[in-house]
């Protein structure tokens, strides 16, 4: 078990190996399809992505008195090409589910970043690790807006590491 608090540096990335279980604590950003399109198009220089963690999630609405609804990962492959310019701007870790393209993996290694998976469909469980939520960009996107989440012991696994290894069956 490895504990990590963002922002993440290259030394931390190097220590991670496919299959490692990681508990994240601190601030992570959310973005999925539409937010990625805008972040890439807008450049969004007001958003500091140095050492940042991006979690691919679109939560269910919070009930009154709760912080957030179900918050499990969405499939990552849809963000493959859009992830590259964001890694070039400093993103060090992406959390989602499922395998991704070879082109993504190559760009990830080049940029010294890492791809993590959280358990898909475990939306209720993962939301219990989120301690606060605020919208920081593209509020009109609703569930797809960029949120800053404060998480505590958020569980995920290293899926692709910078050493070229993968957690997935069938990947070389």
């Amino acid at each position, binding site marked *: 078990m490895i504990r990590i608090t963002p922002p993440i540096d290259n030394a931390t990335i190097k220590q991670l190996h496919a299959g490692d279980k990681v508990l994240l604590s601190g601030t992570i950003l959310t973005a999925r399809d539409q937010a990625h399109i805008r972040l890439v198009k807008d450049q969004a220089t007001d958003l500091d992505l140095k050492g940042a963690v991006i979690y691919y*999630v*679109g939560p269910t609405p919070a009930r009154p008195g709760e912080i957030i609804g*179900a918050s499990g990962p969405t499939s990552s492959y849809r963000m493959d090409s859009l992830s590259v310019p964001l890694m070039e701007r400093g993103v060090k870790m992406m959390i989602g589910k499922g395998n991704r393209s070879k082109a993504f993996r190559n760009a990830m290694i080049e940029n010294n970043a890492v791809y993590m998976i959280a*358990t898909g*469909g475990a939306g209720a469980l*993962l939301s219990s690790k989120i301690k606060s939520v605020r919208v920081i960009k593209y509020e009109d996107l609703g569930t797809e807006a960029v949120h800053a989440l404060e998480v505590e012991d958020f569980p995920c696994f290293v899926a692709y590491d910078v050493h070229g290894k993968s957690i997935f*069956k069938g990947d070389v």
Partner: protein
Amino acid sequence: MRTVSAEKLTKAVKDSLIKINYELDNSLVTLLKKAKSKETSNLSKSILDDILENQALARDRKAPLCQDTGVAVIFVEHGLDVRLDGNLDDAINAGVRLAYDEGYLRKSVVQHPFNRENTKDNTPAIIHTKLVDGDQIKLKIASKGAGSENMSKVVMLTPSDGIEGVKKLVLDTIFDAGGKPCPPIIVGIGVGGNFEKSAMLAKEAILRDLDDSNPDPSLNALEKELLSEINALGVGPMGVGGETTCLAVKINTFPMHIASLPVAINIQCHSARHMEVTL
């Protein structure tokens, strides 16, 4: 002629959608527990632990199991001797609207393929209506997420591809999908009919009871054979490798053209959310 009120149908749709999004079916939970006992690696065990803990938490807290609360898919079997005192599609969509609002479910439907504007109430539902004998209205109600739906496909094979062609297509599709559709999955296969009929057969197949058996002995055997061959692929829970990739295979068939062998594969994630109600 018997009359069913549209209001009652709306309430049944609403209540069912909320219930299925909070509570996983017991037969599914049993299969997931069995799958966990078969895993040998800590990683795949840990993922199945998360899935089992998640469903217990969702049930206790009356909270959605997954953030993708899906598109509502409703199969209606409408008896010829019963009359609904209102518009059927409107009554269903009213139920969807209420469920996704009052149940705090995510509204995931966009109006247009290109402007992607959210309809903000998760309508319209996808509704399939069939007229049948009798004086009842049966609703098969599902919330279908996109992760597994996006890994589904329809392929027009040729008759000479035969059963081996179908098997290869299924195994290739599931292997290529890897962890994306949230395995362990349930696989619905529609063989026959035509282009659109095969897709309908596959969708209905994933709505079958997990523990039913196919009344056609050859198809029953094929379901079992494919289940074990899919699991031999070793994709495993969330794609990380392991003993269980698939919990059940269901195959539905229909007569077809002499020149055709349409095959549809509809994949259902481990959060299989559907139920039946009869009014």
